[in-house]
C-alpha cells in the first residue's frame, strides 16, 4: 500500500472510474436516447433550414417572374397557390371515383389557369404556362418544408423517438426531391426540354419524318396529326408545345378512336411512349418495351387509354425511356436524348412487325412538351 499523498496515476484512475460510473447512471436514466434524439433533431433542423431556403428562393423567383410579366398582385397570387388544397374523393365507395377525381383535377387546372389569365390577360399562353409551372414548383417545395417541419415538431412535442428516427432516415430521399425541384425551376424558366419531354419529342420526330404534317387541336392543350409511315396511317398525339404542358392524352385518344376523327377506321395498334423511373443501378436513357399505358397521371388519363384499348380490342404496346426522378424534371440530358433515338427505332420495328400496310397505328408521346413544338 502506498504511503503519503495520492500519485497522478491514482487521480487519473479515480476520475476515469467516476466518469464511467456517471456514464452508466446516465444510460440507466435513458440519457443515451435523449442524446440520440438531440443529434437526429439537430440534423433534421439543419435540413429544414435548407428546405426553407429552397422554398424561399423558388417563391422569390416566381414572384420576380410574375412582376416581370406585369402581374397585378404577384404576392397575393403566390400566397393563394402555395397553400392550394385538392381534397381526395371518397374512396370507401369507389363507384365513379375516376370521374370524380377527373372532375376535381379539371376544376383545379382550370381554376389556376383562370387565376393567371386574370392576372396577366395580355400575356401569351407560353408565358402563363411557364409561370404556372413555377408556381407548381414553389408549391411542392413549400409542402416539403411544411411536412418535414410538422413531423419534427410533432416528434419533439410528443417525445416520439421512433417518429424522429423515421424522419431522419428518410431525410436523404426528401433532400434529393427538394434539390431536384430547386434545380428544375431554372430549367423550366429557360424553356429547355426536360427529361420528361422525351415522349413528345419522339412524336414530333415521327411526325416530321416526311415533311410537315397538319396538327389539329383535340383538346385545349393536346394536338394530333396523321402521317404516312411505311404504308401505314400513323396518328400521333402529344401535348401542345413548346410551352410547359402535359396535355390530356387520354381524352385525345378516346376522342380519336370513338369519333374516328381522322376517318382512318379503328387502329390496329396503340403505342404509348414515355419517360419512366429507372431503378438504382439501371442506366439513364436505357429503353424497354412491353404492354400497357405508360403515363404517370393520377389515374383519369391512364384509365381512358386502357378503357379505349380494351373496348375496341386494340393491342396496347408501350416503349419507355428510363431515367431518375430528378433527371425527368431537369433539362434533357444527352443520354436521355440518345435513349429517345433508340426508342424511336424500337417503335418503328414494332410498327413494321405488328401491323401491315394500310393499317392504322395510334401513337401517343406522353410527357411535358416544354421546349418541343409540333
Amino acid at each position, binding site marked *: 500500500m502506498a504511503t503519503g499523498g495520492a500519485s497522478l496515476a491514482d487521480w487519473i484512475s479515480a476520475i476515469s472510474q467516476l466518469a464511467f460510473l456517471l456514464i452508466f447512471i446516465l444510460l440507466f436514466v435513458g440519457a443515451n436516447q435523449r442524446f440520440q434524439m438531440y443529434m437526429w433533431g439537430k440534423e433534421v433542423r439543419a435540413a429544414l433550414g435548407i428546405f426553407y431556403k429552397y422554398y424561399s428562393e423558388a417563391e422569390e423567383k416566381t414572384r420576380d417572374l410574375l412582376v416581370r410579366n406585369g402581374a397585378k398582385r404577384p404576392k397575393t397570387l403566390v400566397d393563394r397557390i402555395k397553400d392550394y388544397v385538392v381534397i381526395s374523393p371518397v374512396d370507401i365507395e369507389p363507384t365513379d371515383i375516376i370521374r370524380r377525381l377527373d372532375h376535381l383535377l379539371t376544376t383545379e387546372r382550370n381554376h389556376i389557369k383562370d387565376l393567371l389569365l386574370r392576372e396577366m390577360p395580355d400575356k401569351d399562353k407560353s408565358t402563363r404556362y411557364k409561370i404556372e409551372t413555377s408556381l407548381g414548383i414553389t408549391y411542392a417545395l413549400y409542402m416539403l418544408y411544411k411536412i418535414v417541419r410538422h413531423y419534427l415538431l410533432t416528434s419533439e412535442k410528443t417525445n416520439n423517438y421512433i417518429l424522429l428516427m423515421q424522419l431522419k432516415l428518410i431525410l436523404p430521399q426528401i433532400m434529393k426531391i427538394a434539390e431536384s425541384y430547386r434545380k428544375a425551376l431554372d430549367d423550366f424558366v*429557360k424553356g429547355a*426540354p426536360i427529361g420528361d419531354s422525351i415522349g413528345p419529342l419522339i412524336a414530333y420526330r415521327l411526325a416530321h419524318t416526311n415533311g410537315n404534317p397538319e396538327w389539329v387541336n383535340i383538346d385545349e392543350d393536346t394536338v394530333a396529326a396523321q402521317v404516312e409511315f411505311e404504308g401505314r396511317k400513323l396518328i400521333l398525339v402529344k401535348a401542345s408545345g413548346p410551352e410547359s404542358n402535359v396535355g390530356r392524352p387520354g381524352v385525345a385518344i378516346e376522342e380519336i378512336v370513338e369519333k374516328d376523327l381522322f376517318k382512318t377506321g379503328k387502329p390496329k395498334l396503340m403505342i404509348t411512349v414515355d419517360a419512366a423511373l429507372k431503378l438504382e443501378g439501371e442506366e439513364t436513357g436505357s429503353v424497354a418495351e412491353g404492354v400497357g399505358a405508360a403515363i404517370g397521371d393520377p389515374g383519369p388519363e391512364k384509365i381512358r387509354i386502357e378503357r379505349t384499348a380494351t373496348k375496341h380490342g386494340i393491342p396496347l404496346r408501350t416503349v419507355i425511356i428510363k431515367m431518375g426522378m430528378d433527371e425527368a424534371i431537369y433539362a434533357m440530358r444527352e443520354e436521355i436524348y440518345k435513349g429517345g433515338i433508340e426508342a424511336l427505332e424500337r417503335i418503328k420495328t414494332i410498327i413494321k412487325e405488328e401491323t401491315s400496310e394500310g393499317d392504322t397505328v395510334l401513337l401517343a408521346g406522353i410527357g411535358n412538351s416544354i421546349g418541343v*413544338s409540333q
Partner: protein
Amino acid sequence: MLDTQNNPVIQFLFLLLLIGSTIYLFVQSGQARKKETPRKLVTVTECSETGQETKRDFQEGDYIGKVLGSCGENGQEIIKAIYSVEIKQK
C-alpha cells in the same frame, strides 16, 4: 501481460476515445454533400435540305422545331435537339 482493467492510463485512453467519437458524431452530422458535375445546354440545328448539323450553346427562346432561317438553296435551318452535356473539368 498488460493489465488493462487496473491500468489508469488505458482507462483514460478509453475515456478519450469515448469523448473523441462523440465529437466526431457532431462534426460528421454537419458535413457538406457531394457536388454534381456542372452541365451546359447545347442546341443542335439541322439544315432540312443538306442535313448538315451545327452545335452551339443554348439561347433562351430556343425550342425543338423552331425555324431559325434559311439554308442551302431552298432549305430551312431548324432546331433538331436540345440537351445538356457535362462540362469537362480541366
